[in-house]
């Protein structure tokens, strides 16, 4: 009796661990709509650390971008406070990094505000970027 209970508990724990292992990468991945918009160049990385719409905005694209930017701002606020920085400072730094991480074909904003398509060459970034 006690043996079977222990076995069941072990099985449940293992099951939870497996579920957790599967859930974690799923959480960390981009939403398919966001990934598609990024790949199509309909959204791009702005200089200020937020996502921007390239070209014509549609209601669903606006909603997607707003949703991500609200989430980003929440993360920036938390991290800025932890690092004794302002949200703008942290966001700009993240923008430097996010633009550096774009892959060829994706859009990013140059320091002059124009949208650029990332090539294999390094992106045009703010001179203050590390």
């Amino acid at each position, binding site marked *: 009796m006690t043996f079977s209970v222990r076995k069941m508990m072990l099985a449940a724990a293992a099951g939870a661990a497996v579920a957790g292992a599967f859930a974690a990468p799923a959480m960390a991945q*981009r939403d398919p709509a966001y990934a598609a918009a990024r790949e199509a160049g309909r959204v791009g990385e702005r200089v200020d650390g937020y996502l921007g719409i390239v070209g014509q905005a549609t209601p669903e694209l606006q909603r997607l971008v707003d949703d991500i930017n609200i989430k980003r701002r929440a993360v920036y606020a938390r991290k800025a406070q932890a*690092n004794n*920085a302002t949200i*703008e*400072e942290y966001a700009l*730094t*993240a923008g430097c990094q996010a633009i550096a991480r774009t892959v060829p074909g994706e859009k990013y904003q140059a320091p002059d505000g124009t949208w650029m398509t990332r090539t294999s060459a390094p992106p045009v970034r703010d001179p*203050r*970027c*590390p």
Partner: protein
Amino acid sequence: MMPMKLTGPAADATADPVTGRKRQAAMAGRWKSRMAGMAALIGAGVLTGCINVNAPDKPIVIELNINIRQEVIYRLAEDAADTIEENADIF
């Protein structure tokens, strides 16, 4: 003793030097203001003659992040990179 006492009050009673001084001051003030007016006119003439203001042919871009210093960005860079990796779903 007595004449000395009399000349003292007599000099005090006449207020002419005081009024004279006042009138002089008023005249000096008026002259000064006139000169200032002339100087302003000359100055305006010089300004209109020298300065040309042209409308910019490109839109003026206001850089809101201009006050953020590079050292701050360098300090935050590593942490920001970690943040992007930790929140890969929104970056």
